[in-house]
């Protein structure tokens, strides 16, 4: 935990980070939020501040600052996070697919190699039939393989991905094994 303290000392505070990010998204898009406000999820049910611009910030239950973003704003937010010199999140160190129960989502862990601060961006959708997000391959090259892994295990599609096909499993595999409702018929992973 000492390391966490050092890391906080050098880098920008989470509030400062939050203010910068909010400044990119003026409140004009509040209509979208009103229409599809994300419900509280099982895991992170406490949301500290619900802003009206499609972004939700929370530090509850995590060691990093978390942003939950509307799917439509994902790509815009991500390119800002990378290109802005104050945030400069140039290192996508983890990209995780998550099945939250009702929603499917993707969690992006970002770090800046210049400022050494970290942020977690989350995006989720209730559409389990055809979940689709924008690809961030054009922003971080590492997303190419990571998004293919998420597609393979969760069936989440990524718009504008150059080569979206199964990565580990065979092309004729039925279903998406890491989804919570996946039926493990041949008992490959015995409960």
């Amino acid at each position, binding site marked *: 935990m000492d*390391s966490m303290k050092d890391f906080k000392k050098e880098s920008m505070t989470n509030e400062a980070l939050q203010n910068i990010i909010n400044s990119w998204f003026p409140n004009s898009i509040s209509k979208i939020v009103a229409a599809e406000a994300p419900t509280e999820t099982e895991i992170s049910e406490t949301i500290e501040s619900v802003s009206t611009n499609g972004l939700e910030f929370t530090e509850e239950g995590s060691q990093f600052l978390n942003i939950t973003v509307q799917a439509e704003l994902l790509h815009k937010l991500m390119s800002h996070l990378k290109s802005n010199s104050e945030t400069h999140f140039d290192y996508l160190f983890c990209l*995780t697919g998550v099945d939250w129960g009702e929603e499917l989502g993707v969690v992006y862990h970002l770090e800046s190699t210049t400022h050494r601060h970290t942020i977690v961006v989350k995006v989720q959708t209730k559409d389990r039939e055809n979940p689709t997000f924008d690809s961030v391959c054009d922003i971080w*090259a590492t997303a190419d393989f990571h998004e293919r892994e998420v597609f393979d295990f969760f069936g989440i599609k990524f718009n504008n991905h150059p080569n979206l096909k199964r990565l580990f499993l065979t092309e004729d595999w039925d279903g998406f094994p890491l989804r919570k409702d996946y039926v493990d018929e041949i008992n490959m*992973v015995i409960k």
Partner: protein
Amino acid sequence: MDTTTVNSNFKSEEYFINMGPQHPATHGVMRLLLTIDGEIIKKVEPDLGYIHRSIEKMCERDSYQQIVHLTDRMDYLSSHINNEAVCLTVENALQLEIPDRVKVIRTIIGELTRIASHTLWWGVMGMDVGALTTYFYGFRDRELINDIFEETCGARLTMNYNIPGGLMFDIHPNFVKRTKDFIAHFKTKLPEYDRLLTGNVIFQKRMKGVGFLSKEDAISFGASGPVGRGSGYSCDVRKHHPYSALDKVKFNEILKTEGDSFARYQVRIAEMWESMSIIEQLIDNIPEGDHQVTTNAVIKLPKGEFYQKVETARGELGVYIISTGTKNPYRLKFRSPGFSNISLLNHIAVGEKIGDLVASLATLDIVVPDIDR
């Protein structure tokens, strides 16, 4: 070597060729689908999944103590450090106070693991580029480390020495002496590595300027470990996010700016010296105390999300646990270093020859179970 003269009677055509899944240079069961024009590589597409064992899915079923066992089987050459990653995540989540003795022992064995992994890599990499002797030199020295591990915890490769809360047993009475003996021995042997291979003209010609990776690309591709540091990208988790006893020791982060295969080679050789230095700083000062703190037989993590990164011999391993407060993780993700490193293979190999691909692949130091998980 002159590739510019193309016989105009023949039309150049691209065609596919399989490298692997049983190719010795792929270091495990992995297939590379090469698109080549003559001997020039146009595209490399790794076909993964031959050793995929759905470890992340199994983790959702297992208790936290059981998960530690699975991590041995990912990057089996850094098994101790993999165990440590999961244990640290669980300990941080439970806010356990870990005894200093445990931290120091974990760090010493972690660095021994790194040396063992790098010696094996050195031997195998030399063999990939045609230097057969290195294999025997590398394995000779690695054997001594495995003997220390065997005496300490009974296992030579998949160690399983860490448990959430500390270590499974205390160290063997011979541990300190044998480790010191090994360091003294290896200090005379590591210069042999340089004499045998590093200065070799043929070897240098195979490595220098091959598989170039710029710093920007290294960051963008999520390269870590010696692959990132060979491109001048400061990415040592031990420096930036120190864990266990690594904040108490002095060591240099090895950076090379050339970005080619030879730079990655030099980083690993220099890292073995740094690892020896870390062990020397700690080995005489192992604090007294318990080798573990007692935890509940059934570990339940509080509700929330926990992330821990460690530096394995291959780079940054991340453990991301989402917990709902039960005895199993709701979702557990391993961010494996090899997975990100293999994704940049296409980028560094295009435009070079098949022989260069072997050299580039060797200096990425992949372990296929670590990629497939």
